[in-house]
């Protein structure tokens, strides 16, 4: 049995993957919370007196995030107000159960809860989308819609910040995936702790330097209630490759996760390389790199019975959109509904 590295005299219960130090339960709680406090203070994540929406899925990351934010707010007097923001994708057997967990969090942490549903926002539940598109590519819909749903929710609640539960593993995985996919725009911004979209509400990642393993340990030792089932629909295939690589690398040496984040932070895209510019979608007005945002294209595909419309390279999508504009009413799906009646 090893002793706690902080020499408090207790027996260590875990070895920290980030540093290799061994800690007892109490010291681990202190270290874990203090690190997040350090991250928040040092990176100046929140202005005092602000309202923060915490993106809550009911999973371990968002549960720990909500709990730790509440604790730190009390301890260090951040003077922040929190609201839980959940998205109901409409996945039977997954989201309906995890939303119960979020409701439990709402009561436990005394934070108001707002649920935005795909059905209300887009007219489609994920269950319905999957029957249209099949098990492949459905993560594209869910991901695009969720991002926008969170933005819309944050606007509706008039909050100053949106905090998400992305942890160190998630960020390292995204760095690897963006290199493999050659996505320079995302590669250069995926490691920033605050992403400020034009006129939007800044998104912050207070758990950026927290390891997934430690988040699980923290939730376990604190006996937090969280929902731990994987989504019942197929996992994102390409991200899967990056995930497998990261897990294998982590086995060799867990500090690789921090190395990858460091690499991502110190990478810069050439000034000569073409980068997408942010503009507003001509249809719904949300931030987009194209004339029409991905969510609108995907929706149009769904509403006109061509669910594959927005899947694939954005250049190809653009082309097929142009073709549609030439042939019918300009992609507003009016002609389609006329011809079907």
């Amino acid at each position, binding site marked *: 049995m090893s002793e706690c*590295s*902080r*020499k*408090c005299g207790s027996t260590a219960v875990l070895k*920290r993957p*980030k*540093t290799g*130090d061994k*800690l007892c339960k109490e*010291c681990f709680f*202190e*270290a874990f919370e*203090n*690190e997040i*406090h*350090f*991250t928040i*203070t*040092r*990176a*100046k994540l929140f202005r005092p007196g602000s309202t923060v929406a915490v993106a809550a899925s009911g999973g371990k990351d968002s549960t720990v995030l909500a709990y730790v934010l509440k604790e730190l707010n009390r301890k260090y007097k951040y003077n922040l107000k929190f609201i839980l923001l959940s998205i109901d994708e409409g996945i039977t057997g997954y989201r309906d159960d995890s939303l119960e967990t979020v409701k439990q969090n709402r009561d436990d942490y005394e934070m108001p809860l707002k649920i935005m549903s795909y059905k209300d926002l887009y007219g489609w539940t994920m269950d319905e989308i999957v029957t249209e598109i099949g098990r492949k590519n459905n993560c594209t819909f869910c991901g695009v819609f969720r991002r926008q749903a969170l933005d819309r929710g944050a606007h509706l609640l008039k909050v100053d910040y949106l905090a998400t539960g992305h942890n160190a593993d998630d960020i390292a995985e995204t*760095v*690897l995936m963006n*290199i*493999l*996919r*050659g996505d*320079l725009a995302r*590669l250069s911004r995926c490691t*920033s*702790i605050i992403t400020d979209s034009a006129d939007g509400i800044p998104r912050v990642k207070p758990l950026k*330097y927290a390891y997934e393993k430690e988040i699980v340990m923290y939730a376990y030792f604190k006996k937090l209630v969280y929902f731990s089932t994987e989504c019942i629909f197929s996992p994102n295939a390409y991200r899967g*490759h990056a995930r497998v*690589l990261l897990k*294998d*690398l982590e086995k*060799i*040496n867990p*500090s*690789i996760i*921090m*190395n*990858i*984040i*460091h*690499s*991502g*932070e*110190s*990478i*810069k*895209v*050439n*000034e000569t*390389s073409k980068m997408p510019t942010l503009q507003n979608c001509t249809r719904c007005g949300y931030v987009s790199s194209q004339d029409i945002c991905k969510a609108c294209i995907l929706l149009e595909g769904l509403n006109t019975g061509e669910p594959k419309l927005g899947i694939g390279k954005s250049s190809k999508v653009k082309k097929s959109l142009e073709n549609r504009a030439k042939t019918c009413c300009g992609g507003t799906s009016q002609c389609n509904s006329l011809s079907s009646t």
Partner: protein
Amino acid sequence: MCSVNDAGDIEDLNNTGLLSNFKYKVLAEKCNKCKDEKPCVILRKKDAYCKSCFLTSTVHKFKALLGKHKLIKDGDKVLVYYHGGHSGTALLHFLRTNLDLNSPKKLRFIPVCLFIEKHYFLSREERIDNLRRIFNYMRTFDIPIYFTSLTDYCKNGFSENTLLTKNFEELELDNKEGEFMKDLFEKSESLANDVQTINIRKLLISCAKKLKCKFIFTPELATDIASQLLVNTALGRGSHIPLDTGFCDTRNEHVTILRPLRVFDIKELALYNHFCNLDAIMLQTDLPKSQKSIQNLIENFVIDLQTNFPATVTTVLKTGDKLSMKKNKNENRICYICQSPIEVACQQLTTDEAIKYSHQISTQPELVGGDILKDNFGTVIDTKTCFSCSRIEQFLISTSTEKV
């Protein structure tokens, strides 16, 4: 076609859709390029070429890459790092045939080859045999070859006086000298590989200076470059990606390293050698491959992904080509181990600080006092190493002190 299944029913297999699941690829009738000859090579799983078009385009690709950068002047000496295999042979043949051209397109620089002996894990007889084979092999290309030893270089404290000779028999091949390297590899394969890469680079530059070469050609292929890029990311060397994987590495002010084979894959060069009737020398270049090192793991990952997603390597390469380094207003300071510029912090909180804070908070009995906004929690301001080399420094110190 019929078969009887377990239940005894007769089934028509043609209707079960099994055969329709096979995708047949119809081979192109004519070469993609000249549209005349019968093709004999398929590249990128789709493009068919005849022999002569394939050879022309391969040589063209090599010369186009050199020509695009216009770095080498007539009469410059170029050190060619030869380490065996198909890539080395193809590179030598590219050079020989294009130096011998009688057209204005002929190459006009002077190549000199270098072989670095680092096979301490083989027996003395095997090592001498390798050296002799290489020595004789070089005669067919009529390019002078020099020999030097990596372990000798490390043992002599990276001295400029390390033996560099045309006569391979002068090399000291004592198996004991590799023990330090073996120790390193046993402690951490990933870091030992990284140390070896850094040392080879230093040795190449030192030899190039002695032989008055302004340039060095190294034989990395596209797959090697893609793997190196991911290895850099995993080692925390993200900011060195342009230097470590780009066409040219300008870290040294006197000698520039060029990677003229970074647009080729092994299949192209092996076929090139086959069509030109060239035999390559295959050496056991490394220790047996294991999954314990970052480098081997990533190499296997890239090769596997490449079989299912044939665009993987080119995508990764192109991503790398579009990256550059964050520059300080003043010049960045240089890491004394890898000679790369040291990263400058561009945000309010860096990974380095987060790690240092974590370590401090997990080892000190009392909570860290002081100002959380200003304290640097063990982060060295005037660090002499880059983020990644600070690990290597500790690793080398701990290995050498253990020996004493």
